[in-house]
């Protein structure tokens, strides 16, 4: 390497390779991926969230899976944990809804109430 700028660029580009293994305090997005979730189509939802977070360069975010959340009839379920805010549960998610949740809630900070569990259980 001839300059430090080169090193910093390579470092920036490589951060994705290890970011999962670092201590973190940022946003956590969890998708229920037990048998019920997978059967209801949770996998494309999870992949969409991952790709969107990368495409929009959302920093300090962790998209991951979890087991059965207990409300199998509402699967696929996405839960969003933002530091300092409560948990928001989205149900009957689709890849399209996932795109919107990423844009509106995670990036702009506005909860998409229409997709929340409250809108379905009324």
């Amino acid at each position, binding site marked *: 390497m001839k300059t*430090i700028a080169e090193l910093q660029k390579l470092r920036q580009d490589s951060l994705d390779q290890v970011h999962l293994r670092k201590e973190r305090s940022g946003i956590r997005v969890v998708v229920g991926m037990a048998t019920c979730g997978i059967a209801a189509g949770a996998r494309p939802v999870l992949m969409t969230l991952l790709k969107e977070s990368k495409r929009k360069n959302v920093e300090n975010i962790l998209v991951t899976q979890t087991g059965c959340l207990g409300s199998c009839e509402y699967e696929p379920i996405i839960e969003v944990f933002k530091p300092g805010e409560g948990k928001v549960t989205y149900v009957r998610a689709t890849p399209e809804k996932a795109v919107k949740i990423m844009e509106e809630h995670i990036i702009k900070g506005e909860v998409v109430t229409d997709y929340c569990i409250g809108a379905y259980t009324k």
Partner: protein
Amino acid sequence: MNVYRSHVLICGGTGCASADSFKMMDKFHDELKKHDLAEEVKLVKTGCFGLCEAGPIVIVYPERSFYSQVKMEDVERITEEHLLKGRVIKDLLFKETPDEDTIKAIEEVGFYKKQKRIALQNCGVINPEVIEEYIAVDGYQALAKVLTEMQPEEVIDTLKQSGLRGRGGGGFPAGLKWEFTAKAEGDQKYVACNADEGDPGAFMDRSILEGDPHVIIEAMAIAGYAVGATKGYVYIRAEYPIAVDRLRIAIKQAKMHNLLGTDIFGSGFDFDLEIRLGAGAFVCGEETALINSIEGKRGMPRPRPPFPAHKGIWNKPTLLNNVESYANVPQIILNGPEWFAGIGTEKSKGTKVFALGGKINNTGLVEVPMGTSLREVIYDVGGGIPKGKAFKAVQTGGPSGGCIPMEHIDTPIDYDNLIKLGSMMGSGGMIVMDEDNCMVDIARFFLDFTVEESCGKCPPCRIGTKRMLEILNNITEGRGTLEDLDRLEALAGNIKESSLCGLGQTAPNPVISTLHYFRHEYEAHVTEKRCPAGACQALANYSITEACKGCTLCVKVCPVDAIQGERKALHTIDTDACIKCGACVDKCPFKAIVKK
């Protein structure tokens, strides 16, 4: 580039690799493909996680699930349950992590809680064969800083202020060594890394090279800049094939990115690195013997002075440091010398890696701040002695060190305290012994090693250690006398005084320290012809107790017909005929045969 939602880290250190972790990696690969997860889950081969006892180890991020003693058939389960369905498999987790109904973070487990990882910080976290991962965790930042912002003298001052002392054994202040080499006159200077780790049971250097090889390259380049050397050698034993491979890969990658080569970071500084393989002689860990070996000569020590800082490789000024010493350097540059000096004791700064072995629950590699007590390392980190046995002693410093008994177990570990106790830091081997270990036998074991490894150049070491071993053999076989103990002491003193190099000068230490702390065991061997620990086979006496039911199984198994007895009657052993093989003890279903 792909974004992965989960990383599966598989230990690729020598310990886990010998338990088939590479094959497990292939199996994971197939399983992920089968479940169409290859795009979402990344497999990462890492270096050693330290807890070798629990290997093979697999860690799944982001949950940080620490799976231990994973078997081939568990791969399917982990893939289907955890990776596909997101259910952590509790019964495969390391035994200390599952709590009542939660799962403890691995950092909260006793083994990791008291550790502070500086030299080992990337081991088990990054893939050692991918330079980008090292760079992502701030790799080569220290080199960049040194080459663009610091003068060589500043680098040396930083190191001096940090208080770093050589981790290979002697504990010489690293900053001073760098300064001597920098000030020495010479048209060409060299930087060398001592990776000839020979102490039985010590494997921290291997683990660093296997888990984080780039840190050594970076540190050696920094050292080269500081002392004015353009060429470096890593002397590593050929019996560490995984470490050699990974270092080769790392050097190739560093050259590709011009982190080794000419005009690094446009600073005008050139540095190149080569590997020299050793054939595995213990004496080649001694610096002058190592230098001879690098030059292609027979690995025998030279008299000092001149020291390598003045006349080293090809008689040119040479800086020689150990792997673990180098591994601390980039962190010292990045975090500042005050940070490093803030860890440890007054005269021993930073952390030290120990290889825990022997009678201990958590065998493995641990890195603790200097000043941590032996008790904390053995009981809190090491998890204590297996099977509820009593602690007898801990051997530190390998064949050059000594045994430390229970009464000193609360001593804070640092260079000077261990010397005061008649032992030494050495490279950091720590072998724990329980009530079943005979201290005479332990001393004999280490002497046997040094006799085998003595290069033969100087008579005190070549002949003296051999005589000591003969005396120890006599004692353990019941032919010793009280005068032998005096002879051992006299010989030990002479060998220490007159040997040419560190090997001979420290070889008597295991005998001296055991004679000092456990003289009563030696005396029992020579006066009562008895081994208090029951470990010396030749001194053992077998007898049959009242628990004997007269089943005759022992009669049949005895190879020399030393056991007599009728069916359903108490048997007896003819102790003169008995060859003490112990076969009868193993066979007896009533535990009626005892060894005393």
